């Protein structure tokens, strides 16, 4: 037996979530390698948000299990939450607090040493310096996204979960954010799980894509291999094939 097999950063085993009669996530299993960037894709209602919720222990699975860095999130979440973080445009930071105050609070929650120094570094890296002392609620959408990313990076997480990290950003800022994420992953060997509807972004950032539909993983492959297998030009076309149910035919034709 090979005892040196690295532990997956995230592992789901027959992970299932029912809301009453509705099946949001249907016995999905996957492993995400340390240091990888994985895209979690699917149309609305595919089960991405619920899957992310279970990975972060915000949602309790109906059955199955999910572990992060070897810890079962249903039982031992607090042993690993300080090594994770999350960013989503659907979760805000307190509006009346300045960016610096918000980052100070989260630095305290995550036990960051030298939090002032860390904030200065993030302000420089994410270009927050011009508005770091302004209330978070008075920022533009793009500035808010950068601040949310700064919050997600405050503890230099090993596991970074991003939900639409470049939504509402202009192309220049979005490109800049993607570049920052690429550098962060490379420097920290961080594991990134990315839910996005921006297929260009997924193609650029992700080593691998988990395609979800009606609570199941319907495909699992590197973006370029997926594109080749479906005989398409880009991931957006693959996404449309899968979402519209024409995926199987295209895949067979390409094969």
């Amino acid at each position, binding site marked *: 037996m090979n005892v040196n097999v690295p532990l997956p950063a995230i592992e789901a085993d027959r992970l299932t979530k029912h809301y009453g009669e509705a099946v949001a996530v249907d016995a999905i299993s996957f492993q995400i390698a340390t240091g990888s960037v994985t895209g979690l894709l699917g149309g609305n209602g595919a089960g991405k948000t619920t899957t992310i919720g279970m990975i972060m222990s915000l*949602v309790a699975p109906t059955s199955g299990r999910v572990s992060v860095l070897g810890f079962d999130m249903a039982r031992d979440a607090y042993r690993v*939450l*300080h090594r994770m973080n999350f960013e989503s445009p659907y979760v805000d*930071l307190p509006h009346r607090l300045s960016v610096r105050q918000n980052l100070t609070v989260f630095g305290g929650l995550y036990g960051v040493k030298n939090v002032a120094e860390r904030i200065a570094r993030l302000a420089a890296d994410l270009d927050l310096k011009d508005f770091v002392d302004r209330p978070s609620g008075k920022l533009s959408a793009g500035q808010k996204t950068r601040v949310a990313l700064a919050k997600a990076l405050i503890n230099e997480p090993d596991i970074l979960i991003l939900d639409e990290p470049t939504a509402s950003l202009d192309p220049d800022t979005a490109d800049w954010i993607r570049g920052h994420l690429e550098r962060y992953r490379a420097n920290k060997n961080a594991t990134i799980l990315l839910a996005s509807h921006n297929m260009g972004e997924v193609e650029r950032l992700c080593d691998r894509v988990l395609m979800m539909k009606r609570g199941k993983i319907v495909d699992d492959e590197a973006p370029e291999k997926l594109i080749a297998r479906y005989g398409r030009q880009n991931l957006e076309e693959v996404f449309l094939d899968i979402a519209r149910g024409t995926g199987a035919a295209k895949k067979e034709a390409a094969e």
Partner: protein
Amino acid sequence: MSVASSPAFSFSRIFAMVMRHWYLLRSSWPRLLELIYWPLVQMVMWGFLQSFMAKQTGTLATAAGTFLAAVLLWDILFRGQLGFSFSFLEEMWSRNLANLMISPLRPIEFVLSMITMSVIRLVIGVVPVTILAMFFFGFNFWGLGFALGAFFANLLLTSWAIGLLCAGLVLRNGLGAEGLTWSIMFLFLPLTCVYYPVATLPVWLQWISWALPPTAVFEGMRALVLENVFRADLMLWAFALNVVWITLAGWGFLKLMHSSKRIGSLMSVGE
């Protein structure tokens, strides 16, 4: 990496949460004004009523002597619960709850930070009003001495138990349950006999009344103000009840939190 391992309990995390709410209070004068406005209005209204009734003769004049103490103690109970619940609601209103729930902040630390904020809000709201009561009506609330400490502690414990249950219900059911936070304490107003003795209630209702810790506090206050007697037995009864209430509320909060994870309401906070 700049993050140390995460201890099972951390005063730093509680401090961070207290700072979060302190920054908010400091930045918003309407929030500060709101803390003092209602206790002040209550004190002025009941103060004048007490002054008027004190000029009458007989039982009314005697009863009037307790009104200002009653209203100030009631405000400790009411404001204590609101102070606790507001800290929680602020997270819902700002859609920040998911950020906190995925952080290393433990439920007990979250609760202790809300308790701390409840005391801070109470001090800001009630202490100036007690000083004004002394100035305007010659009523020295602090003259209740050691007994005041016992009253204060017991009322705060009850307010936190109620606040904890309200927080759990809002967590579980979303902001649709927010109205409870504002109104639940008014159920206690008649039942805990703030302004009249327990004996005023029908016998069957007295049983319910004595199961509520504040009832013993308000009875104790009347014994002190009217008969100059400190009823330690009542304070011990209130404390014992508070232990039961806090335990039940903590259990209820954890159950409601687990339930919110089961139904997925933490992913859709605010709705």
